[in-house]
């Protein structure tokens, strides 16, 4: 199935009756606080413009109250926008008729929820085929598909258990299997792993990355955890108070945080596992001695490879194997430690 990207253009959401009439005032510069104080309306999202690449994972990150869950619900229109467009495959989701929207939700999107939202009276397999039931697919066929995805998420043998009999991590595997069985192009994951404990969360991230490498769906992933965002995201958008404060690749955000707020976040990140050789390498100096590393090797892995080979430098190559840059231990170490400026910025932010 060919994937399509999602374009969010100039999206505004104002909660409360007749939110639309305040759009112009907001555009003219009214703040969230003024809107709430003078008119009793809550500004949920303000001028969101994000281009979510086809076949990639876009992570929307923010703390609670930043509007990230509101944003993801605009993509399948569980929440109606006040103003703006969400374009998928040339169609604006926000203007779809009720019937078109239902068809869009049935065939193009699938969603995974923070609190799993499984049906307690259905077994694992019956939950998994829920989306196909809605589409009217006969059980003989849907069970076959459901069974396949249950095996893929590692739940074989639990088909006839009820959700209550499973741990949180296993319940979310059911949630993931239910979404994948729908075979939809868009996968919406609303804080899907936030309720899981750390080890299981990393486990589930791996499951998602492995599946994504093969499925190439357009994934939108919501999280409040920057480590998770950096691990999963081909693209990351950081939300604060309903506005996008920075968007780009994980490398961009770690290397050049847009403001003090993001700098403070990035400070806590294990840079060695995020930054890649090709991001920090120096121009190729012509010497091909040393270890040869792919451009997307993390610098931690690069350092390990260099040390194990008892060398001090490596040659970074592009996917064809041609050398493109040079990486020495000094470069690696200075990239790994947070720059002094970020420490000052963090103090300033606090």
């Amino acid at each position, binding site marked *: 199935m060919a994937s399509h990207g999602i374009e969010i253009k100039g999206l505004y959401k104002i909660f409360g009756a007749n939110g639309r009439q305040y759009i112009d005032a907001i555009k003219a510069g009214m703040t969230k606080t003024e809107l709430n104080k003078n008119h009793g309306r809550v500004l949920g999202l303000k001028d969101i413009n994000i281009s979510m690449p086809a076949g990639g994972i876009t992570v929307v990150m923010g703390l609670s109250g930043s509007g990230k869950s509101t944003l993801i619900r605009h993509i399948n229109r569980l929440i109606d926008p006040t103003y703006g467009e969400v374009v998928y495959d040339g169609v604006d989701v926000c203007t779809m008729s009720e019937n078109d929207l*239902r068809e869009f939700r*049935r065939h193009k999107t699938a969603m995974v929820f923070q609190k799993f939202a499984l049906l307690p009276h259905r077994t694992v397999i019956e939950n998994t085929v829920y989306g196909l039931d809605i589409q009217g697919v006969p059980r003989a066929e849907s069970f076959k598909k459901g069974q396949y995805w249950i095996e893929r998420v590692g739940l074989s043998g639990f088909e006839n258990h009820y959700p209550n*009999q499973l741990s949180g991590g296993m319940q979310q595997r059911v949630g993931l299997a239910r979404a994948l069985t729908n075979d939809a192009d868009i996968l919406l994951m609303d804080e899907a792993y936030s309720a899981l404990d750390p080890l299981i969360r990393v486990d589930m991230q791996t499951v998602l990355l492995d599946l994504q490498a093969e499925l190439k769906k357009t994934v939108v992933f919501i999280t409040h955890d920057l480590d998770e965002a950096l691990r999963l995201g081909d693209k990351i958008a950081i939300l604060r108070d309903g506005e996008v404060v920075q968007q780009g690749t994980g490398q961009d955000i770690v290397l050049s945080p847009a403001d003090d707020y993001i700098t403070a976040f990035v400070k806590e990140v294990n840079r060695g596992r995020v930054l890649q050789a090709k991001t920090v390498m120096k121009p190729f100096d012509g010497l091909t001695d040393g270890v040869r590393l792919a451009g997307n090797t993390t610098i931690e892995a690069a350092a390990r490879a260099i040390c194990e080979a008892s060398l001090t430098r490596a040659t970074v190559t592009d996917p064809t194997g041609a050398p493109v840059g040079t990486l020495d231990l000094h470069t690696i170490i200075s990239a790994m430690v947070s720059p002094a400026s970020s420490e000052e910025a963090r103090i300033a932010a606090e």
Partner: protein
Amino acid sequence: MATCNFLPNALCSFPAISDASIREARKVIDEGFKSLVREYTGFIDTIVQPLQWFLNFLERLFTNSPWIIVLAVILTIVYLGSRSIRITIGTALGMSFIGFIGLWNDAMITLAITTVATLISIIVGIPIGILMARSDRAQASVNPVLDVMQTLPSFVYLIPVVMIFGIGKVPGLIAVVIYAVPPMIRLTNLGIRLVDKEVLEAADAFGSSPSQKLKNVQMPLALPTIMAGINQTIMMSLAMVVVASMVGVGGLGRNTLQAINNQFFTFGIMNGFALVAIAIIFDRTSQAFGKRLQKHSEVVHG
């Protein structure tokens, strides 16, 4: 009264409409109602005829079949519903007790009317409950009606029921339904409104239509509450068959009424306990059935 000497008369004794006017108004309303009923008698009879047939059929089936077959059928239903040997044995003992004290036939008549009243309450109550859960306006308008149905003394609405339908089983049945249907409606409404918002959102996200949502999510998740409503409805119709005996319903209720009128203490106790036995059988069976439907929620992961 002493204090009244200082006040004008109108503030002392409540200024009521004169007795003559009230008498006149009553006469007009009563006459109007009577003539209205007289005009539509044929129509009303045609409408309730199927009820009469169904009730008669069930009553004859219960009373004319040999007791051993009826008992076997009851025990089978109780066992299939509850899957509990204890409840089944209890039922056998209870029904045998009723038979030994010579009330088998009366118990069968009561059983028939309770069954019909419960079925009607479910058929009428669940759709109204669903409607109420879907619209706040429907809820706001139905709720006061239910309040009146539950608090109005049953003797008061027996009067118009008798005027409209006359004396007999059907008016009794209708009085029982009026009394027994409110918990069915209320608990259906409540059950659906309490369904987890997250699960509903998931149903929406997968593109459920409103009827799919009702069938796949709302009704199954509201089922425990709805079962509690059915249980309450059964209990209330059993309580009401005694009152309904005043308008011509037979069975254990009529015996109780006779016992009250003649101060037959022992006879009253016997019939009363027969009703209690039937109530307990219904209650335990329907609760065990409801619990069995919810088996999936019992095994909780630690």
